[in-house]
């Protein structure tokens, strides 16, 4: 090596050290909340190899924050393409990027801006990967926008943790979500601490409007939109399949809803309301996403470096609200022993023995503790109803109209419920309601 190149290499090394001065200051000088091992050379070196996975709508913020936390090997999963309505907050995207894959554009941008970080983009759904894929990471951090996706990744990481013999199998899951000026960040140590399934009742599904209201007695603008969306669309089929992002399709629904609203003298229909209702749009702003994503990445940094106490084993959940002043509530959500994912006990299911199997299956969609849309159910030694395969579906269909009594099911009966959306079984036991209550 010549003197010049050696000198250049030294300058480069110096500038690299200088770049991370503030962060290294924290990593190398233990404070009152630092794990003593944090400053051992071996541990410090491990951080350089830390492999981390990010996913979901907070992706831009998460990638920026992870790269600025000196994580070097980051993967990102997102199947979405960029929409114009993302530009008010997903700050790595420009108008010219509309239509491109989010994961790809975001990864390229951050790799270019922050030297030395490697970001691998996957333009896919999280459900497209198996346990072998997820096992390569040490930590997963996500801001997914659907509860289904959250439950799926949670179940995946819990099953990896439970099957694993050594502590490396426990891959902390950090989850963030926002709505308007509010949000939450939580940390899960799969199989050890309260998991997303344990906390499912924090996301109770919205009460659906009864179909008869939509069909015959609308009172609100949303009822008219739902009528146009569900009933008029089915009858008239103006386009082969409904694309809720296609302005032409939304306009069709909007105009139908407007006509129906005029008929019933219902005020308040607009394009924005139509789109908001059919897509179930949740307001989202840059500042709230910044708060929640950074709170999540701060936890990832603390877990990976042990430079300070992280959320997880004691407090594990932070709620944030900025509507009325600023309010945070940081608390410990307890693990549930009867959690279908990380618990070991079957859960009680209060049922009326006279209800039909169909009613029971329908109720799984709205019970806050279940929220299953396509349930199949079996009791010990007895298949009650299966959605797939078709032959089994046909064979078990007659059971749907029978009552639980007629099917010979008893109080205390254990049943297993499955749903194609989740890679797990839900164990329940029947608790019969007393007559007349």
């Amino acid at each position, binding site marked *: 090596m010549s003197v010049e190149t050696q000198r250049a290499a030294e300058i480069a090394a110096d500038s690299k050290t*200088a*770049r991370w*001065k*503030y*962060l290294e*200051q*924290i990593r190398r*000088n*233990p*404070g*009152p*909340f630092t794990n003593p091992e944090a400053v051992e050379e071996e541990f410090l070196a491990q951080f350089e190899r830390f492999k981390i996975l990010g996913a979901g709508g907070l992706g831009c*913020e998460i990638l920026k*924050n992870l*790269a*600025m*936390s000196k994580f070097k090997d980051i993967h990102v999963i997102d199947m979405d393409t960029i929409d*114009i*309505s993302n530009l*008010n*907050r997903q*700050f790595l995207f*420009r108008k010219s990027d509309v239509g491109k894959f989010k994961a790809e554009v975001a990864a390229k941008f951050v790799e*270019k801006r*922050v*030297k030395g970080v490697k970001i691998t983009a996957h333009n896919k759904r999280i459900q497209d990967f198996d346990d072998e894929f997820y096992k390569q990471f040490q930590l997963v951090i996500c801001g997914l926008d659907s509860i289904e996706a959250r439950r799926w990744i949670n179940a995946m990481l819990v099953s990896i943790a439970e099957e694993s013999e050594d502590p490396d199998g426990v891959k902390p899951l950090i989850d963030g979500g926002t709505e*308007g*000026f509010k949000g939450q960040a939580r940390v899960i140590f799969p199989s050890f601490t309260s998991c997303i399934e344990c906390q499912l009742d924090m996301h109770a599904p919205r009460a659906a409007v009864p179909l008869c209201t939509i069909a015959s*007695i609308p009172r609100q603008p949303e009822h008219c939109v739902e009528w146009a969306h569900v009933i008029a669309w089915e009858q008239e089929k103006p386009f082969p399949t409904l694309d809720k992002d296609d*302005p032409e399709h939304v*306009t069709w629904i909007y105009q139908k809803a407007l006509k129906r609203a005029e008929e019933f*003298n*219902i005020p308040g229909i*607009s*394009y*924005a*309301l139509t789109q*908001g209702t059919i897509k179930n*749009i949740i*307001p*989202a*702003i*840059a*500042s*709230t996403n*910044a*708060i929640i994503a*950074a709170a999540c*990445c701060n936890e990832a*940094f603390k877990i990976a470096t042990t430079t*300070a106490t992280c959320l997880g084993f004691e407090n594990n959940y*932070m709620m*944030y609200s*900025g*509507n009325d*002043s*600023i*309010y945070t*509530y*940081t608390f410990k959500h307890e693990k549930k022993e009867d959690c279908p994912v990380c618990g070991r006990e079957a859960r009680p299911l209060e049922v009326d023995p006279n209800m039909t199997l169909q009613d029971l299956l329908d109720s799984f969609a709205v019970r806050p503790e279940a929220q299953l849309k396509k349930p199949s159910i079996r009791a010990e030694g007895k298949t009650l109803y299966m959605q797939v395969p078709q032959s089994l579906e046909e064979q078990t269909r007659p059971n749907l109209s029978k009552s639980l009594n007629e099917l010979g099911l008893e109080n205390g009966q254990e049943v297993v419920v499955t749903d194609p959306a989740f890679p797990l079984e839900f164990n329940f036991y029947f608790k019969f309601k007393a007559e007349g209550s």
Partner: protein
Amino acid sequence: MTEALEQTPLIPRGPSDKEKKYDRQLRLWAASGQAALESANLLLINSGAGTAGVETLKNLVLPGIGKFTIADDAVVQDVDLGVNFFLDESCLGKSRAQCCTELLLELNPEVDGVWNSTDSASLQQLLDASEAFTMIIYSLPLQPGMLEAIEAYGRQHRTPLVAIHSVGFYSYFRITLPGTFPIVDTHPDETATTDLRLLAPWPELSAFSNEMTKDIDNLDHHEHGHLPMVVILLHYLDVWKQEHDGAYPTSYEEKTEFRQLISNATRRDNPEGGEENFDEAFAAVMKHVSLPPVPSSLKQVFDYEHKDEQESKSSFWIIAEALKQFYTEHQCLPVTGSLPDMKAQSSVYIKLQNVYKDKARQDVNDVLARVHKLSGGENIRLAEVELFCKNARFIKLINTTGDAPPSMTEIIELELGRDEIAAIAGPEVPTSLIPIYLALSASSHASAASADEIITAVCQKAPALEGNERLTQVAQELSRAAGGELHNISAVIGGMVAQEVIKIITNQYVPIENTCIFDGIESRCQVLRL
């Protein structure tokens, strides 16, 4: 949100490109909030590592703030690249203000941004030469002399100021408002806003209800099962009154008894074996069979004494005066006009909704007439009075002048007292974050200090903290960061400051009063009035 959605255009039209881009935020602060943001002019005076300030601006450029200026005399160094995302290697050796401005402007072509390599000597020049700033954000530590210039500008131009300080895992920001800050559009939870006036029905509402229920027992199942919950309650309240010498059910026991009356009136011999509308009425008794009290926040508005002549002439205070007159005369607030959804025939529900809306309009016109009679109220628009009446119960005053915050000594005493309770109560009661604020403020003019230096400086101002274990920990934790920012912490605080700036500029939602402390180790905040 409702205003944005209620503007039904005559000709169906899709959204413009701008409405599409801003759709997710227009659902929060509507076109009026957006217009306020777009006409705002912000100044960021940056220092230290400067990340928190730039992260704040990022969150304001994206939603489309009108214009920003960055004043910062630093030249970009390697260390900046490890903490500030809005710089890259090509920026080394250049003006940090310039580089951050350029990279921030990429985020939104609709935003204007300029930069200035201001030091303490030229800050005054910048302040004098620029068009009026809507708000000034500055990050600590500042060069000596700068703070005085900023505060003087704030007083003179009545400009809200925000100070940010972020070091290691700790951070705080503090807002200085120029005077009492009233908010009308506070966006309360929708469930809190319902006011059905069941115990004070006006003649049209009573007539509507009586007409529907005059033959209630002979209605067929369909009609009986579609009586709106409001009508059911009004009818049985009349029945109750007749049996109770004209008195309404008020105590918990009476309401429980009244609820039983509703339950008994529910038909169960129909094919459904019950009635949804009666179930709704049953469920509404505890919440809606009551006179909503005038909340203390509105009383504060009514009883407010102006210290400032100029302030009392604003439209807010003129409408407040008219509303007070209305309340004094009628002993109730204007009807809001909103009616929650309830089981009913479409046409009946719409008629009932119009009974509420007509009354709301009448009340607004009553208040408007009073507004017009007050000096300075001649030109106040109907829309403003409407919003005021609709939100009357949720109007709030922030930073009321004349009601001075307690002294730091008193606050510390109070907070330490709470900590003693927390120590007994266990982890459910969080400890005070005031040591973080004090430790950060003790180093607001110097970037690095030893733990002992921090403790000594804090205890000079707050002797009560002498020997406090929590302060020792905080000082040690702060000291090890040597004045450096951690990106995540500055990003959290940058998000919070941006939310607050939006709330102040749009005059919607409720800003903090006035200091927010963030502990990135325990992941929680505390808001204190200091």
